[in-house]
């Protein structure tokens, strides 16, 4: 009797498991479709989950980060002498530049004062700690511990001390999600200096993103500077991104200035583009050409004129 009961239990559990597996497969496929169509609700769910776990995540990741940094610092310690020599050389070179920069800054300020220049509003920023990354090969992204409460907006540019890192693609109250320039979906309008040639920087999962749709490849040289063009109004213009490198296949790529291997903090920029002049002023009315001649207008009485004025 008890064996029969046990068999009934087993059969019941098996049936429940099969139904559950079917439901899980259906829900997973539905979620995958929502992910693929960039469903905003799914993104909101993702950001609320990240918001919820962000504080504990930082707490748990602390020891892991510490262990990783100890290992990295040990490697760095091994070639300390060489680093020390190189840094001394750099400091000597930078001292000369510092003096030069101070003089130029003074001169610049005097010239601005003479010309009564009105400067555009400065781009402000908030700095955050990178507390998680995607960890896998599917997406190149990172989580930062600043969010909407700190003034971060969707699309904000993320930079480190050297150059552009990526942009914000999801904002929670306390955390934000960054898409790095190396991600497959990353596309940034850029300008290549000198010569101000426009191009699009496309991430392809490698450390050096591709330069596509270049406006005249014949005058590009390896080592040219790549900056944001500001087209589209997402990124501020003139943010440094990297240097042009030529590949054996004939394509141009960017050696990024940002040090992704040591990315611990990023600045998220709050950028308000200048007012766009995208419509004619009130003085030049678009219907001025087609407007009827004044004498052809019907005569209006005082009431009608009053209504028109109102």
């Amino acid at each position: 009797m008890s064996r029969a009961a046990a068999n009934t239990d087993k059969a019941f559990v098996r049936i429940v498991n099969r139904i559950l597996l079917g439901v899980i497969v259906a829900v997973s496929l539905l979620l995958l479709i929502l992910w693929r169509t960039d469903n905003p609700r799914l993104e909101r769910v993702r950001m609320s989950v990240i918001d919820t776990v962000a504080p504990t995540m930082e707490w748990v990741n602390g020891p892991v980060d510490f262990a990783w940094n100890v290992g990295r610092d040990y490697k760095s310690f091994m070639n300390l002498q060489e680093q020390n020599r190189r840094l001394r050389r750099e400091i000597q070179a930078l001292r000369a530049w510092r003096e030069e920069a101070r003089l130029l800054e003074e001169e610049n300020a005097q010239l601005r004062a003479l010309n009564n220049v009105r400067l555009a509003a400065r781009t402000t920023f908030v700095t955050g700690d990178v507390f998680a990354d995607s960890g896998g090969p599917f997406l190149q992204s990172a989580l930062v511990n600043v969010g909407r409460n700190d003034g971060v907006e969707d699309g904000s540019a993320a930079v480190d001390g050297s150059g552009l890192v990526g942009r914000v693609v999801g904002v929670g109250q306390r955390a934000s999600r960054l898409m790095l320039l190396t991600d497959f979906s990353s596309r940034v309008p850029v300008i290549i200096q000198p010569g101000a040639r426009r191009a699009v920087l496309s991430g392809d999962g490698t450390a050096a993103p591709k330069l596509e749709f270049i406006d005249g490849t014949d005058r590009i040289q390896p080592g040219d500077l790549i900056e944001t063009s500001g087209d589209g109004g997402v990124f501020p213009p003139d943010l440094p991104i990297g240097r042009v490198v030529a590949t054996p296949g004939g394509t141009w790529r960017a050696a990024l200035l940002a040090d992704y291997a040591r990315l611990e903090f990023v600045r998220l920029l709050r950028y308000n583009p200048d007012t766009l002049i995208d419509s004619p002023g009130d003085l030049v009315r678009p219907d001025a050409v087609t407007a009827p001649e004044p004498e052809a207008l019907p005569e209006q009485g005082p009431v009608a004129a009053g209504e028109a004025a109102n």
Partner: protein
Amino acid sequence: MELAEYLSAARLTRILLLLGLGLIAIYAEAAPLGLSATAHPSPDLLLCLIAYWSLRRPGSTPMLAVFALGLGRDLLTDVPVGAGALSLVIVAEVLKAWRAPIARAVFPLEWAAVAFAALASAGMQWLLVVVTLAQPPYLMALIHQSLFTALVYPLIVIFLRWGLRITWRKREAVA
């Protein structure tokens, strides 16, 4: 498994332990250890944990708990949402079905089975991404990650076997 055991407090405790360890595994995977595109991908610690648990304690590895952990990982670490969770559930169910022959065999065979499961899981996720016409990652990167996962599995076994004393119940597994 009988219904009484299905609802027992000991089983519930083991499930809660699995959820706690799974969360730690997800956090460790997400730790930012170099964001460069050429950095080593993090090993799939969650898969290692689920594989070990499915083989040793299949009754305490419910599908819903595995799915919840997989979904949490997908949301936190930017794996295509649903693909990672589904592949994890399927890996757990397949390993439960293979439990008896693996329990009879030596550890290297179990290791090979988990390595194969890691590779199959990565392949399934890649295929799901391709089917949705999204840009899939490089296959070499996925193979690299699966290899890394396989290398880490013995460490997870040592931690769970000698640290938490979760061992085989071979008589139950072989029966």
